[in-house]
């Protein structure tokens, strides 16, 4: 049994154990769930250590027959890109548990259900990045929506039922388009001697360009909704407004990455011709997302939807990096996925603590927090600095790589994207000024600073942001082989410098 399978089974076992615990003992439930998630983190770190970064092939592979009639397999295996995303997931889950220790208590159902849902979600989040069978990927891709639906609808705030429904229907719509494309691929593979859902074999198919375009769109729209790219983004702010901080963290930090991950893993490797055809249009959408998300973030009054719109801007950067398709931009984009996960986690978690203490999500209701809760204020400030890609923090490395790589092939897009960094300064500093600076109003005077549990939860996130900012080499070394493979598959090489050395 591959370590990947055990990694997926562990949270599932955790969910079962939590299921048989008495619901009355909420503390025990939380401790057991946290224990299991930490165990998963540990196993994933062991896996990362034994991962061979020099090898560009899939590692820790395992294939078991699932539905033999259609040649559907339980097939898993990871490359560098999947590894960093899985690591990000397994590190974020216990942090989310710890940070939102009490957010399960105002739900529609009891505490147990909350942790069972989260642990099942963790299994699926690992599985979706590990799957090397398109059908398996599709099933997890769709099934993941359900725990999130219940987490938003059952434990969120405000108009949570409507937000959960919008999220579910919007994502299902994208999923159906992808299902059609998956079936289309299967039929083509059947016609070309050998029905298969295996990613590696599907990428070897020869498909005429018109068909490629349609199938590409099927996958791409599903991923663009997930990622979310302008103009498919409107479900995200609604969901982020209603979800708990922890759910938002996992939703934007991990689940949305499946979209950009899928663009690289499926769109590019299955349909190289269509990718070339569609690239100008997609780059345009990406640039619009960058600027649009930033402008909208400036105009937000609700802190959670502000974070959601900053993410739309950041997903624009990631998509730009992916489709500019140079080794810098692609590596930058993959690294950006990881950094955005941690950076968004820091933003949502600190914002969640602020909201919980102040009892309001409106930025205007805060103010002067730096005087009363300096550690909380600093955490939020650093998270904001990471969102505006301050050098020294990891998001700078990835954002700069995306821009420098894109400039070589799409200078106009890169220049417009670079303008986004001014807007980023505006949306972060406006929020920082309104929430942290100024006189402390009487309503905020009683706000307490972070307690030990919260400090332990935020410390690793900030540590990762700083460490990867100063020393991104370990991450980049793991990601580089994936980039190379993708570029070779796409038949693209880096532009050469105009003045030879």
């Amino acid at each position, binding site marked *: 049994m591959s370590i990947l399978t055990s990694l997926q089974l562990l949270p599932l076992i955790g969910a079962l154990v939590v299921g048989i615990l008495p619901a009355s003992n909420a503390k025990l439930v939380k401790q057991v769930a946290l224990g299991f998630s930490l165990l998963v983190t540990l196993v994933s770190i062991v896996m990362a250590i034994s991962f061979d970064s020099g090898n560009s092939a899939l590692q820790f592979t395992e294939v078991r027959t699932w539905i033999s009639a259609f040649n559907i397999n339980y097939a898993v295996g990871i490359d560098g890109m999947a590894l960093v995303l899985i690591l990000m997931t397994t590190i974020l889950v216990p942090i989310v548990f710890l940070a939102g220790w009490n957010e399960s208590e105002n739900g529609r159902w009891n505490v147990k259900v909350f942790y069972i849902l989260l642990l099942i979600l963790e299994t699926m989040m690992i599985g979706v990045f590990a799957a090397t069978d398109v059908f398996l990927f599709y099933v997890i891709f769709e099934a993941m929506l359900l725990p999130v639906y219940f987490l938003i609808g059952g434990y969120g705030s405000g108009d949570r039922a409507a937000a959960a429904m919008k999220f579910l229907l919007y994502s299902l719509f994208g999923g159906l388009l992808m299902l059609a494309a998956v079936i289309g691929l299967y039929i083509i593979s059947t016609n070309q001697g050998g029905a298969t859902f295996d990613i590696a074999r599907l990428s070897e198919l020869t498909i005429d360009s018109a068909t490629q375009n349609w199938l590409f769109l099927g996958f791409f729209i599903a991923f663009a909704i997930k990622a979310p790219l302008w103009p498919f983004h409107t479900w995200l702010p609604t969901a982020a407004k209603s979800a708990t901080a922890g759910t938002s963290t996992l939703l934007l930090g991990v689940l949305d990455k499946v979209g950009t991950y899928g663009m690289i893993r499926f769109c590019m490797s299955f349909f190289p011709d269509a990718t070339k055809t569609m690239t100008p249009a997609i780059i345009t959408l990406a640039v619009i997302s960058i600027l649009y998300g930033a402008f909208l973030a400036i105009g937000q009054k609700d802190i959670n939807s502000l974070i959601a719109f900053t993410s739309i801007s950041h997903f624009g950067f990631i998509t730009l990096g992916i489709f500019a398709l140079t080794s810098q931009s692609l590596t930058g984009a993959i690294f950006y996925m990881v950094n955005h996960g941690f950076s968004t986690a820091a933003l949502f978690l600190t914002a969640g603590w602020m909201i919980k203490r102040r009892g309001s999500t409106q930025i205007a209701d805060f103010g002067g927090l730096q005087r009363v809760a300096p550690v909380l204020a600093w955490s939020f400030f650093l998270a904001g600095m990471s969102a505006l890609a301050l050098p020294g923090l990891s998001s700078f490395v990835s954002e700069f790589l995306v821009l420098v790589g894109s400039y070589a092939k799409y200078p106009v897009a890169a220049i417009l994207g670079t303008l986004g960094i001014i807007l980023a300064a505006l949306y972060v500093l406006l929020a920082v*000024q309104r929430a942290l600076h100024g006189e402390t109003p009487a309503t905020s005077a009683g706000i307490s600073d972070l307690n030990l549990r919260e400090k332990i939860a935020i410390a690793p996130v900030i540590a990762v942001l700083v460490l990867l900012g100063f020393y991104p080499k370990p991450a980049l070394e793991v990601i580089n082989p994936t980039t190379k493979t993708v570029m070779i598959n796409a038949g693209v090489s880096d532009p050469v410098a105009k003045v030879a050395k």
Partner: protein
Amino acid sequence: MTTSTSLVYLIALPLFSAGLLLLLGRIADKWGHIFATLVSASVFVIGVMEFFAMQGREGEARAATQKVFEWISVGTFQVDASLLLDQLSICFVLLISGVGTLIHIYSIAYMSHDRDRRRFFAYLNLFIAAMLLLVLGDSYLNLYVGWEGVGLASYLLIGFWNQKPAYATAAKKAFVANRVGDVGLSLAIMIAFTQFGTVTFAGVKEGASGASAGALTAIGAMLLLAAAGKSAQFPLQSWLGDAMAGPTPVSALIHAATMVTAGVYLITRSNFIFDASPTAQLMVVIVGAITLLFGALIGTAKDDIKKALAASTMSQIGYMILATGLGPVGYAFAIMHLITHGFFKAGMFLGAGSVMHGMNDEVNMRRYGAIRKVMPITAATFGLGYLAILGVPPFAGFYSKDKIIETAFYAGGVEGILLGGATLFGAGITAFYMTRVMVLTFAGTKRWDENAHPHESPFLMWAPMAVLAVGSVTSGFLLNSGNALVNWLEPVVNESHEHHSEHFLPPLAISAMALFVVAIGVAFAILKYRSVPVVAPENVTGFTKAARKDLYQDSFNEAVFMRPGQKLTAGLVSTDYKVIDGLVRMVGWVIQISASSIRNIQSGYVRSYALIMVLGVLALVAAVWMVTL
């Protein structure tokens, strides 16, 4: 090139100290300021040792490098965290750590009543680390990290008293204006990488000779944009006046002596780009000339002592930028003026801080007057700085500013006359507004607030001022004796030893003209400010009104960028809700509407269901029938 192992401590020590003081929190309140000062002093000591080590080496071996670790390596994009200490960066290392340490010492006393003094010192150390990284990085990307790092430190320090909304806004404004410049630097790096496949100074220098004129001009223009943002040059200068919201030692260190001169460093460092692109050089001199007049004119109308000094800083940096645009001859003079300016302007800012300290933080010069009697040391040190900035021989400014005026005249032709005229005119206005500051503050009669009881500042405050005053007196002479600085910088900026003898104006004549203009400025100011009303007069010329409002740059920015930007944002927010999300909601709405109209068919009457069945069967039969036909 020599390989060094100690350069990294220049940055690591203050960075570590900043992190430590911030993480420890209140525990470090008792000793944080002393610790930070010692760290800064030890950085200065290391700098001095490096300087002497450099003097012991000759030629190529003078410059030292240290590769700290491999930072980013993706494909051909290879950037190491590497440091480069050459003849240019050592000047900055000594200036930053030297003036920095003096200002640390000054701040111990100046900030002694502030509950957050430890945090202030942590920020100061953070600034020192970032600024040293800026001047020591061996590639544009390393420089960029320091570049944004000093921006962050500046933001934190301007907003140090951010409980006052205006101060917090000033901090934000500075950061955003700097970011506009940062876009320029980012783009310059991107173009450089696309052109040369590397972003190290050495690599770009090597490639610059083979690049197209268009590419070089583009890089140059972008670097100039970056320099304008950081060094408060036209059209990005408006943040500097507001930045005076920060504590005065910050204004002295960051917004006078070091950070704002980073643009001069950037252009000097990139001399190989600008030397190869006359268009870019022309842009540089135009920006420099506009700013030096702009700043000087604003300085004539400011009543806030710090804002008057800030306008002066802007103007003096304009001189330096102009000098860097004049080609190989200008760089050394720009750096010389930068160093002498570091001494006299920092000294004057500390003097202003000392006056404010004694006057209950009053900044309005109209409420000063006759302070020389109660603060003799402050008045003396400030006075020496004043003589230096005027360019009175043998004070520091005489050597550095006269050289710039001279070089401007020697640019030749119409350009030379225009630039020379601008610098000369600027010198006159400088004399006017600086005399105005002197007269309003130290001379004349008392116009103090009733509660003001000015007194001389403590030793910890006046000692740094005295040291800086010594620098204001001697640095120009020292740097110029035997062309010391010019020769020292020669390997970096490739100064060719051309002689200016063929020009129509001998240097002596230019100096005489400069002194004459300065004398006029001084005389005019003394005459005009014999009596000073406490409330600023309203019936002033349109020009004064404009200068009081920073020549309407803020109004322009607000009208052209801010308000349309706000409108655009508001428009997009409502479009997003109404149009894009509206479409999504419309899909749901259409389904609801159509569902409820289809629901009417479900009448609940058996016979209507039966009828539909019959009709359905008939339709089916008809369809089958049609097909078989």
